[in-house]
């Protein structure tokens, strides 16, 4: 197997100014019951960039996201989020930091005993924002995901795709500086998947939010690499042929608990690594 396009060791050595990145992993390791899931992971997510994380099932993609928001703690290594090292933060300190980070879980993880507006406005209600302000912002963000009509419904009344969009609405209502998506299109039909991808592209291009997106659907990432969100037309449009892949999107591929690729779409397309070529073919 040939060497990865961007060697992991180089990234780790280059850690000079942690605050310059939205997220930074420095030689992070984690194991569960002696099974090593992530082994010396290092990467950096610059501000305003979206990084698509790939890997086969069980390669530690979701674990990586949970580490990034402090829901899990690494066995070794350091994690920086928005310039702050979260590795040794107390849970109370993490609660404060998490207010600046949004996450969309794999199965949406909506509170099933709360209505859509209570789910979406949960964080605002916790921050004691006045009720009329919460309603205004919930309606605004539901309009963003085109689900305003579900305002008064329970999650059980929604389809899988709608639940995923409500989860996105819940994650972005406080305008987070970083967004983490865990398989946002997993298990959805192509049309619904495209709607979700459009929302992610909209968040990337309109609000310039830094994002880590775990997925195993390569086509979603390529759509994101070849499209941008046209604010005037209010829809995602394809980039002209010469400008393709010139969007703030990079790729990270995990294999056996290690990063085997960290680079942009051009580098991915021209990679000579057999595993990567097979993966993207």
């Amino acid at each position, binding site marked *: 197997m040939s060497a990865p396009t961007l060697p992991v060791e180089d990234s780790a050595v280059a850690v000079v100014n942690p605050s310059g990145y939205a997220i930074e992993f420095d030689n992070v390791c984690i194991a569960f019951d002696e099974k090593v899931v992530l082994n010396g992971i290092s990467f950096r997510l610059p501000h305003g960039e979206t990084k698509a994380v790939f890997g086969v099932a069980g390669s530690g993609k979701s674990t990586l996201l*949970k580490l990034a*928001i402090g*829901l899990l703690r690494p066995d070794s290594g350091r994690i920086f989020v928005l310039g702050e090292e979260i590795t040794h933060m107390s*849970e*109370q300190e*993490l*609660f*404060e930091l*998490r*207010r600046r*980070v949004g*996450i969309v*879980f*794999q*199965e949406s*993880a*909506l*509170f*099933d005993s709360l209505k859509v507006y209570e789910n979406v406005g*949960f*964080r605002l209600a*916790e921050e*004691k924002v006045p009720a009329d302000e919460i309603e205004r912002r919930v309606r605004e963000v539901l309009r963003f995901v085109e689900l305003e009509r579900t305002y008064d419904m329970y999650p059980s009344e929604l389809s899988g795709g709608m639940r995923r969009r409500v989860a996105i609405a*819940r994650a972005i209502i406080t305008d987070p500086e970083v967004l983490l998506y865990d398989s946002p299109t997993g298990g959805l039909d192509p049309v619904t998947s495209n709607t979700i991808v459009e929302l992610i592209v909209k968040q990337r291009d309109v609000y310039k939010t830094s994002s880590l997106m775990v997925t195993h659907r390569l086509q979603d990432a390529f759509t994101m690499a070849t499209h941008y969100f046209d604010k005037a037309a209010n829809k995602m449009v394809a980039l002209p042929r010469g400008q393709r892949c010139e969007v703030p999107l990079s790729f990270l591929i995990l294999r056996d608990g290690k990063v085997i690729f960290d680079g942009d779409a051009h580098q991915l397309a021209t990679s000579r690594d057999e595993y990567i070529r097979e993966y993207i073919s």
Partner: protein
Amino acid sequence: MAFELELISPIEVAKDFALAVQEYTLLSAQSVANFFRRPLYMGDMLQQADLIGVGSLPIVVLTGLSVGALLALNSASTLQQFGGISLIGRLVSIGMVTELGPLITGLMVAGRNASGMASELGSMIVTEQIDAMRALGTDPTKKLVTPRIGATAFMLFFLTIIADLLGLIGGYAVAHLIFGVDTQQYWTTTWQILVFRDVFTGLIKPVLFGFIIATVGCYYGMSTQGGTQGVGRSTTQAVVASSVLILVMDFFVTKLIFAVFGYR
């Protein structure tokens, strides 16, 4: 079909038990400390008080009446042999207020609510709702566990008073209708026999039992592993553990109160 029997080392079992005790103690301590930290989630506490208190009322009314009546019925035959049927009110009163009222109410509420808490929180764990809550910057022990502890301890106190009263009424019904005990004699003896120690014992126990029910139910819910099967396992374990702990706690509290106030 061959079954494989996996042998577990006693040391591993002891380690797991010690770890469970440690985690339970930490969760309980943190949840109690949360009563002194803002925000307090009074709305959630009231909602839980309604679910636990008002929801448990029918079962507490029925068991209170039945236990009081059965206590009177069973003791009456013995009392009759010694010509002491007039003492039946005393016996029902002491039995219900100090022991059976708190114990039966505690066990009933444990069966109903410890299981409910374990299954609700367990389902939230397996569907990542607890992780989502943490990710949204909210402490789940503060939002979910502390209100349940406050509500259960508070409501069990009043449910026990209701069970005691209904037990006395059940005892009166048997004593008066079957054994012909005079109404005034029954109620006078039930009232006169009670001293401060009895009432104190009968009212401190439900608060402690309420604490046990909520902390055990929440602990098993929050430590659920293994999907829906794990939720079922947590629910069963919560009921068994809270019931056993209530019985053990009952013994030690009674012994302590006897040690402090002396025997009758």
